[in-house]
């Protein structure tokens, strides 16, 4: 009898406490949510902790438990968490493909997306699951102004032939024109290919990858092969060094900052490192050149927060996501730390950002004004993106051509074969 009474009292107490937690407060979101983040040299724990604190300080009922992905492969880790029933309430910079189609991600309403510059970015089956928080241009070409001047290059290339001419002058001076990498990340070896496909193929057919998904075009088609052929031409002319494909991302960046190589095709996030590390030479940046000089700028808008559609605290998760993403201080911090171009209406970066960031941002603003922005090949994540697992195949195809294991025709056929398998 006494035991039953104690049990009943305990249940009542638990119920009342639960009620207090969930329903407590009128303005606060309330409850605890889990937030999957990641850490890089640009984005250390302090960056995340202070950004989370700013949001929770304004919403005292909200508690955020930070989870950190063990590597830069946030998407892979999120998949593991999903499989083990621990999918977080909120996650940032996780590729929404797959998660969205299977109904695991909340689809944002137009009202919630009203403050974002490109609310229609990355649609998956008509829904918008990832906050389109920032844009990254991928790749502009960063260059070493001193090496350019020493080689007698007086203006930055805007056509493909001008780029080849500049490369020849640099090579004649004993300088490797392009700094590339690869290693365990893979993507630094495909940056030039990404730029070529984006500018040459998407410049003419912006929905090329959607057509590939519908099997209306193939990688072996002339348009794609021609772009890949230009990449192979750079290799054949000795403008990039095949031994560099073993270098990981940080070593690749370090090599360029140490003055090895005159040009560095990389996403605009590199600007943050360039400004922070201040190498002993000036760094400039120009848009990836097209065949005839027409302005075409590859970019990816997304990278923001996704929310677990099955979250037990969905309301708090949504509010936190929006508050985190629209917090001016957080956006300023992301600009300085990671060189991102915030895609928030009316936002202007702080005045004290570095010169490399400023130069890249001006190029991007011009492209937006001239409506010259296209998707960045191999970086798309939505219905118009590569099939799961295909990114690595693109990196492999690029490396095969660099190392001479495959011809362009073979590499394109390889991509078509892998595409069929990825379906």
């Amino acid at each position, binding site marked *: 009898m006494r035991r039953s009474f104690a049990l009943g009292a305990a249940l009542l107490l638990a119920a009342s406490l639960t009620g207090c937690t969930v329903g407590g407060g009128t303005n606060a979101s309330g409850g605890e949510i889990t937030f999957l983040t990641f850490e890089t040299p640009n984005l250390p724990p302090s960056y995340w902790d202070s950004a989370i604190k700013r949001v929770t300080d304004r919403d005292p009922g909200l508690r955020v438990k930070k989870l950190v992905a063990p590597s830069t492969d946030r998407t*892979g880790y999120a*998949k*593991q968490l*999903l*499989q083990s029933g621990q999918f977080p309430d909120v996650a940032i910079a996780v590729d929404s493909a*797959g*998660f969205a*189609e*299977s109904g695991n991600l909340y689809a944002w309403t137009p009202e919630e997306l009203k403050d974002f510059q490109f609310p229609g970015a990355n649609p998956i089956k008509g829904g918008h699951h990832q906050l389109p928080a920032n844009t990254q241009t991928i790749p502009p070409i960063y260059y070493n102004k001193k090496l350019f001047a020493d080689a007698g290059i007086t203006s930055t290339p805007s056509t493909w032939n001008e780029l080849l001419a500049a490369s020849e002058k640099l090579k004649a001076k004993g300088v490797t024109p392009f700094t590339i990498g*690869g*290693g*365990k*990340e*893979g993507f630094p070896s495909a940056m030039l290919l990404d730029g070529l496909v984006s500018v040459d193929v998407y410049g003419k057919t912006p929905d090329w990858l959607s057509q590939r998904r519908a099997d209306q075009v193939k990688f072996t088609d002339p348009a794609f092969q021609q772009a890949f052929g230009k990449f192979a031409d750079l290799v054949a002319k000795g403008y990039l060094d*095949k*031994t*560099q*494909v*073993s*270098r*990981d991302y940080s*070593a690749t960046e370090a*090599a360029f900052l140490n003055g090895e190589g005159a040009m560095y095709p990389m996403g605009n996030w590199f600007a943050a490192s360039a400004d922070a590390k201040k190498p002993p030479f000036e760094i400039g940046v120009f848009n990836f050149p097209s065949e005839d000089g027409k302005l075409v700028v590859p970019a990816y808008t997304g990278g923001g927060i996704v929310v677990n559609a099955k979250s037990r605290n969905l309301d708090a998760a949504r509010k936190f996501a929006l508050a985190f993403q629209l917090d001016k201080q957080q956006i300023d911090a992301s600009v300085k730390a990671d060189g991102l171009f915030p895609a928030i209406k009316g936002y202007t970066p702080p005045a004290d950002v570095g010169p490399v960031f400023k130069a890249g941002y001006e190029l991007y603003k011009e492209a937006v004004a001239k409506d010259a922005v296209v998707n960045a090949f191999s970086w798309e994540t939505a219905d118009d993106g590569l*099939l*799961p*697992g295909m990114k*690595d*195949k693109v*990196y*492999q*195809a690029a*490396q*095969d051509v*660099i*190392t001479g*294991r*495959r011809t362009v025709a073979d590499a394109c056929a*390889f991509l078509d*074969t*892998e595409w069929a*398998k*990825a379906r």
Partner: protein
Amino acid sequence: MRRKPILPRVWHFASFGAPGVVVYLCFVMAPILISFGYSLTNHNPFNPPAEFVGLENYRLLFQDEQFLTALRVTTILTVIVVIVPNLLGLGVAVLLDRKGWLYNALRSMFFTPVILSSVVVSIIWTKLLDDRGPVNDALRALGVEHPPGWLSDPDLALYSVASIVCWQMLGFCVVVYLAGLQGVPAELLEAAEIDGAGPVRRFRAVTWPLLAPSLTINTVVLLISAFKTYDYVKVVTNGGPGSGTTATIAFDVLATGLDANHVGYASAMAMVMLVIVATLTTIVLRFLRRREVDL
């Protein structure tokens, strides 16, 4: 005279063995059976429910150039990793089978890589073998104008990865052979010496046959660990440079299952790998054990 009841005795043995059996069933047999079940479906974690496809995944597997390449890569890696540390380990163990602080220190030195994490070892060697790393810098200092691209040359990268695995496994082989050497009865060696046998003859006729159990242990452990190689490949080359130059079957299983979401197909790969490893291990064990019995 009363006979002891049988049931308590059975219960005694059952209770002794049950925890092990339960752990084995839950953590070894169940995952294998689940994986086999997946291999008969087109399971995709994002697209449930999975459909039963029978042996279709297995049929496709043996027409898949990528899988056959991974099989070739794994075979080459396994052959190197089974032979090299075994041979070098035996040589080093024979040299270190002496008393004294120097030999003790050298034994510790050889064993140190074994206790390091394979990821740490991989990171260290990635830095050392980079084209601008200390190894190539040293070669350049010695006048080699174009040192090898240890990790960037598609013809070399697999051998570089294999060398790293060999480097780490060498200490293990040394320790097992040293234990074997210390079990060789001194009287047998003395008797052989009295009979006029020189050091080489003594080793061949007395020591080597008695090292048969050590050879069995080393070979089986190296065979299994080489066939499952994933971590070194992931960290050092990520399967590259390019397509299929260093991607082992274990690497492909994870890439196909986790990156491309084809869990059913990846499970079929894993099952084939399991059958190959089990078959090879059984053959090697039978062969080497027979040698032990013949002593």
